């Protein structure tokens, strides 16, 4: 913590965290890079001159030119447009599935933590058991048996990723419940609802934000793996995973098909991981000394 410079200035814990985060160059860089990539993908229809699904079989696969910045694939489709549009899907899946995981995890963990007793024991035992299951296989199963759609993809992946969050939230609540200041608040006659929103929620947000930022890259990895196997996003839509699959098959003849989507995908994962690490250092009060 920054004690020396101006001792009269009092900062809230959030300001402290913000200052710590700003000092972490890697995560600031990660934040900038991720924002750039996201904006680029969101603005894809404005930037790229080509339709991502417009085929030109006569033109065929060509290396990057000034016309097609990232080259074209075997169907003559513009790879720049496809990479940006694929990014939209990958990033959307990343965030939507994280929201699903957050919702389930927070609801489950806070219920177990608040109510406690035998309900807590049973709920957390279920989490323990689910932890030991081959969940990726269940996702594959879901994607196989039911009509493959984006919604199913969000839900299936979200269902895999909520377990850790439930544990974190529950642990935090059980810990906070015993803190003297909560007891003091309830002795002063503060309404339980007010205690939850004024005292518990602000203390929960930190770990949840940290875990959520680290879940997004994990989810994107899962989505791309499924799409790579042909079980995720279905053609003609494409995500970075399915583009990478396409490129991996033709790496010898048309290496650019692998290179560009991979660079975008891995850079995004790098950026998100750096943001997550930075947030963890910034929001964890223990790391401050």
């Amino acid at each position, binding site marked *: 913590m920054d004690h020396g410079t101006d001792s009269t200035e009092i900062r809230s814990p959030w300001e402290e965290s913000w200052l710590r985060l700003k000092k972490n160059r890697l995560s600031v860089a990660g934040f900038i890079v991720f924002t750039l990539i996201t904006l680029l993908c969101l603005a894809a229809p404005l930037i790229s001159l080509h339709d991502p699904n417009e085929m030109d079989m006569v033109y065929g696969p060509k290396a990057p030119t000034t016309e097609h910045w990232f080259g074209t694939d075997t169907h003559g489709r513009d790879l720049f447009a496809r990479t940006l549009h694929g990014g939209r899907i990958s990033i959307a899946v990343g965030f939507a599935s994280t929201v699903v995981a957050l919702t389930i995890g927070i609801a489950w963990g806070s219920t177990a933590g608040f109510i406690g007793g035998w309900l807590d024991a049973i709920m957390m035992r279920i989490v323990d*058991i689910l*932890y*030991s*299951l*081959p969940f*990726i*296989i*269940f996702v*594959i*199963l879901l*994607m*196989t*048996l*039911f009509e493959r759609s984006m919604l199913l993809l969000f839900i299936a992946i979200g269902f895999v990723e909520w377990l850790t969050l439930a544990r974190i939230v529950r642990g935090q609540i059980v810990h906070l419940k015993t803190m003297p200041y909560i007891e003091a608040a309830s002795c002063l006659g503060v309404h339980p609802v007010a205690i939850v929103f004024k005292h518990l929620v602000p203390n929960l947000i930190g770990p949840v934000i940290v875990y959520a930022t680290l879940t997004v*890259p994990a989810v994107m*990895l899962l989505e*791309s*793996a499924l799409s*790579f*196997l*042909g*079980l995720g996003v279905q053609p003609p839509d494409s995500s970075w*995973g399915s583009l*990478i*699959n396409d*490129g*991996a098959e033709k*790496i*010898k003849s048309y*290496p650019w098909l*692998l290179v560009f989507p*991979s660079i975008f*995908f*891995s850079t995004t*994962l*790098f950026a998100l*991981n750096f943001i997550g690490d930075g947030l963890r250092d910034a929001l964890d009060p223990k790391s401050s000394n």
Partner: protein
Amino acid sequence: MIRFILSRLLQAIVVIYVIATVVFFMMKAVPGGPFSQERNVSPYILEKIQEQYGLNDPLFAQYKNFMWDLTPKKLNLTKLLTFDLKGGLGIDFGYSFRYEGRTVNQLIKESFPVSLELGLYALLLASTIGITAGTIAALNQNRFWDYFPMSLTMAGICIPSFVVAPILVLIFGFWVPEAIRLPILFWEPPYEAGFFERASYKILPAVTLAFYYTASLSRLTRGSMLEVMNQDFIRTARAKGLSERAVVVKHGLRAGMIPVISYLGPVAAHLITGSFIVETIFMLPGLGRHLINAALNRDYTLIMGTVLLYATLLILLNLAVDVVLALLNPKEKLSLKNS
């Protein structure tokens, strides 16, 4: 201790049956049977096929038969060790829907050893390199030998295996001089070959599979070792004049390895059961590729067999890890003795 293991085993059995039930009803809930997509099949033949696979029985009878088929009825260890589920345990997953005339048991028997072997190679690679790199990084905190391996591990975590594999293929299959090129497809040479040639087929798949886990293991080892090396008992060990080597090996690693070992269990499980991407890329005849193909082809019996086998393996491996951890941790051991 024995009570702990027994209660966990009992729980594992219940969980496996619940999984089997869930998967069974999930498959039944899906509109259209496995053969409804077949074109040009006369209704009579379709009826016959359905009958042969027992799909026309009442649902409850199907469920009962299914549960009985996958219940172990005997134990023959020598046969079980050759992955013969029918001879070893009396478990019968029935005929595959897509591989005509082959039983799921046969397919498992042929393909599971490949996945197991691949997983073990990758586990060996990941744990030796990962733990060594993590320890070196921790002992050189904030110096070159910390930053260098740790930036590599970040790459290991952010570059997925399906990107690593094609790059490795390009480098070691095409770019390097002919003499040291590696095979880029399949698991065995198509003809009689010597030891080194056979071994060369395993290198790229094993390295690809180990890539991510090497990175995450070394990060975990580094974090754990950093925490341990700052503790009082390490200072005591140094104060009594032990060599730095003895401090690190005898005191540091022993405490620092506990989180690593608890992570190794899930890692082992994931390496053995999670190789389907690598198997698909390198066209290995493993169980993971069967799972993906079964999923794409709606081969219900094969899906059921692979899912249950994987689930059982994961659960048993996790149980083994818990037991090892309980044995390693003095506190846990005490509480088990007292209970």
